[in-house]
């Protein structure tokens, strides 16, 4: 059967089980879009900026638990994807990005809209390809999906010259990818698993520290059962929220720079940390020299480079989180349950005391809305069941602190890179993946303006998303640092000159509501969430509210600034 490159591309994307892609056309990819129009079973969502396509694909991947796909043209289309790819790379999100490229004969000649996107994205992709032979197109696409989703997942870019897309060749379904140079190790070493269980039996003050890897490897159930069986309290990184039920008494809240007092104190005083799917980013460790000084550390990760990178580890376990945690669970089930939690009561009492004395707190007065109150009400009204995406800054931290996630894949944030402008396109991607779910972008007034054009995408594609702006008329997180560390000199962070978000919503054909009265927060949220279509809710909040606790950069995580 003879097929064009464009037809092969679409066939292979469908073969990989993808039903939705996010894209934006151009001269180099016009043939692909022409062909796509004949494939109603592969939904193409036309974004308004290529960055939006990549963030949407990222969130689609997380909400759908599959590979996200973006398709853009050469040159500026390709360079516009870089931020989104870098974010997915840091967060290990499986994704394949297809970029158009000038015809092979012109490559290297500074042709119109030519950029070396493979060179540009080499350090921020898991792998990338320039396809130079149409006969290798199908196999390369298959390999790209394989690499994106296996091992430690990540984004893979495939650059497609126009003549490859237009070529007509005999198509044959390629064999399953087998690479001699890439064989991720899923199966953990049994001895190490046994060692971890032995360490647990010795421990008096254990903590489980869950990260994004637990969610990516679908290990939440195993992790939850381990914690419950041995009464081990659980904390998480930003990417790990939802890996363990946020409403369970053993949940400590998030760890790190804006972690809860009890999570940071628990890690600081623990004698055993079972870390799963985390990479000990500086935002969770604080000063590495003072991190968990009394703890033995068990670290489970599919990526050996994550182990021993920042923190010395006593029991490294290289392998799939799910396989490792299930292996540990099997061994635990063979033990007398009491031996797994000797002397646990004093530890849990201590943690409870930290929780009682120093909870997350804020005071909602009668006049000005507190941003935390908006998130707390959002949690109550949605019963914790919405998919929450976030922008970056204080809004992101308050969403992480005050919305409690009982299930994985419900909190979608740009964790490792912290990309302002992530939340709105991400909400669109999540909605495309889960049309029956309520999807809410918890936004800042600064960030929302970075990809505001995607409102049009939401409306055109009928992907109804709800945007809750915690509008402090500041680049709040930066302002907070200026308040604490720069004598309140608020340089370049004032955002009072801003559009009227209600009118802006209307200009795009969305609905907009504003609220500046604490007594009306609940009412406005209900109205906004119940109103059909895409809605912006503009909450005018306390301008100089700060996120607490806060660990100043370079400090130990147990040395927190508190309210």
């Amino acid at each position, binding site marked *: 059967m003879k097929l064009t490159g464009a037809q092969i591309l679409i066939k292979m994307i469908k073969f990989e089980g993808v039903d939705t892609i996010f894209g934006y056309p151009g001269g180099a990819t016009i043939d692909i879009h022409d062909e796509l129009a004949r494939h109603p079973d592969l939904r193409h969502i036309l974004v308004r900026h290529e960055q939006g396509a990549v963030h949407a694909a990222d969130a689609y991947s997380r909400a759908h638990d599959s590979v996200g796909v973006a398709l853009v043209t050469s040159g500026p289309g390709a360079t516009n994807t870089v931020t989104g790819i870098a974010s997915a790379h840091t967060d290990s999100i499986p994704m394949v990005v297809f970029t158009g490229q000038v015809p092979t004969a012109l490559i290297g000649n500074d042709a119109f809209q030519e950029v070396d996107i493979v*060179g540009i994205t*080499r350090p921020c992709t898991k792998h990338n390809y*320039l396809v130079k032979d149409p006969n290798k197109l199908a196999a390369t696409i298959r390999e790209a999906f394989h690499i994106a989703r296996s091992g430690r997942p990540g984004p893979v870019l495939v650059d497609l010259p126009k003549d490859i897309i237009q070529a007509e060749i005999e198509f044959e379904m390629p064999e399953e990818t087998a690479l001699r*140079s890439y064989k991720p190790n899923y199966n953990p070493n049994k001895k190490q698993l046994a060692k971890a269980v032995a360490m647990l039996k010795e421990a008096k003050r254990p903590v489980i520290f869950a990260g994004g890897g637990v969610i990516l490897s679908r290990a939440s159930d195993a992790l939850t059962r381990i914690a419950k069986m041995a009464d081990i309290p659980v904390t998480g990184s930003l990417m790990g929220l939802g890996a363990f039920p946020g409403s369970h008494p053993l949940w400590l809240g998030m760890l790190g720079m804006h972690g809860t007092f009890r999570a940071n104190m628990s890690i600081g005083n623990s004698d055993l940390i079972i870390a799963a799917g985390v990479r000990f980013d500086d935002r969770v460790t604080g000063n590495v020299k003072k991190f968990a000084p009394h703890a033995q550390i068990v670290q489970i990760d599919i990526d*050996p*480079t994550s182990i*021993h990178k920042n923190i010395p580890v006593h029991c490294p376990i290289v392998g799939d989180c799910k396989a490792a945690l299930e292996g540990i669970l099997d061994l635990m089930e063979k033990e007398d349950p009491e031996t797994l939690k000797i002397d646990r009561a004093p530890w849990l009492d201590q943690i409870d005391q930290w929780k009682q004395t120093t909870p997350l707190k804020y005071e909602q007065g009668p006049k000005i809305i507190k941003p935390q109150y908006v998130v707390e009400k959002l949690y109550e009204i949605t019963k914790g069941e919405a998919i929450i995406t976030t922008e970056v800054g204080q809004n992101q931290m308050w969403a992480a602190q005050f919305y409690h996630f009982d299930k994985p894949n419900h909190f979608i944030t740009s964790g490792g890179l912290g990309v302002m402008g992530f939340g709105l396109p991400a909400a669109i991607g999540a909605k495309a993946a889960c049309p029956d779910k309520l999807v809410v972008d918890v936004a800042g007034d600064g960030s929302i303006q970075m990809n505001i054009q995607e409102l049009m995408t939401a409306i055109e594609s009928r992907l109804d998303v709800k945007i809750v702006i915690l509008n402090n008329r500041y680049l709040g997180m930066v302002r907070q640092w200026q308040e604490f560390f720069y004598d309140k000199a608020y340089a370049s962070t004032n955002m009072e000159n801003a559009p009227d978000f209600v009118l802006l919503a209307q200009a795009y054909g969305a609905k907009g509501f504003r609220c500046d009265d604490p007594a009306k927060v609940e009412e406005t949220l209900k109205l906004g969430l119940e109103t059909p279509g895409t809605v912006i809710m503009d909450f005018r909040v306390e301008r100089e509210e700060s996120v607490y606790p806060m660990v100043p950069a370079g400090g130990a995580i147990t040395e927190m600034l508190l309210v």
Partner: protein
Amino acid sequence: METNRYLLSILVDDEPGVLSRIAGLFSGRGFNIDSLSVATTADPHVSRITMVTNCDAQVIEQIKKQLHKLINVITVTDLTEKKYVERQLALIKVHAKPEKRAEILRIVDIFRCKIVDVGHSHYIIEMSGNSEKHAAFVSLLKPMGIVEIAATGSIALARENGK
């Protein structure tokens, strides 16, 4: 922390961009490369990269893991942990003033090097050996007046049963 010299032998897929991935990994993560040499192996789809780097024990562990993580890297062998043979090749152009010629020839002889080009005022000497031999040879020739040096990085292979 104490730094050491490490000699890595890396087998990679012979594909465009592989060297750039490795160089990019080193520059992006602030690892340093002292020398690098690349050539195909008996298998035409596989190239061997021999690399010398100076770093501490924790960094070399990261380097090895990070290299291994690159999709096109097949194996990473740390020869420093094994018995191995190491060679560099250098071409050295020296001033050959009549009164110095005898001494140059003597040094060349002692080091078992070869004179591969003789000009009116210059010799070009070919030398092969490990990095210590290279350094010793160059320091002895220096007083004669070295004009130019072209040298390869180290290449190395593990000896049989090279544990």
